[in-house]
């Protein structure tokens, strides 16, 4: 089981801020995952584009990366506080 976390505006795209699921065996890299999610949550422009960073178990990964044994995968659109 993998937990996917949809942060910021991506929660609106996914319809939830978090989901737990078994990823298909064919999804092995961050590129696979982006393509799969862009199909699942289709929108006029792909939501999981390169402006969205991916964190594997709370570490931003340098892409393309293997998903390895990550149990929590988070999708971070452009950030900014203050």
């Amino acid at each position, binding site marked *: 089981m993998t937990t996917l976390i949809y*942060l*910021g505006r991506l929660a609106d795209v996914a319809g939830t801020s978090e989901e737990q699921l078994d990823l298909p065996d064919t999804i092995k890299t961050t590129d696979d995952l982006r393509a799969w999610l862009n199909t699942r949550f289709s929108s006029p422009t792909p939501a999981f584009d390169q402006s969205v960073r991916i964190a594997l178990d*709370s570490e931003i990964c340098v892409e393309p990366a293997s998903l390895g044994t990550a149990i929590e995968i*988070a999708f971070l*659109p*452009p950030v900014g*506080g*203050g």
Partner: protein
Amino acid sequence: MSVLITDAAFDPAEQLRLFTHASKGAGAIVSFTGLVRDTSSTGAVTRLHLQAYDPMTQRGMEDAIDKARGRWPLQTVSIIHRVGDMAPDDPIVFVATASAHRRAAFESADFLMDYLKTEAIFWKKEYTEDSERWIEPRPEDYKDKNRWNS
């Protein structure tokens, strides 16, 4: 050095009191307070929602303080950042720096705010009477941030 991410309202004046007390002998103290704006391009703001993603948000802010301490001689540094729902004029962020040197206190507070605006791991949603939108950093924010790269 302290970093606090909180969903409870805080009072910048009280925070400055505590910070000043903790910075005896410093000479120079700078504080920055960011407040929720009451208007946006689409009308009067009714609510601002801030989301963090811990532990990455906390760790990122601690790293930024480490960077500031590497560049300037700082005695004390404090950052408080709200998450959750806020109303116009509520404090969102408080940054305070204390140093023997006035320029170190000014520049490090300025540096930390540029970090917070462009790299700190938060997402903001602004609500007006009849709209809601996610806010991302403005081009000026990235430009301000890049001043520190040299």
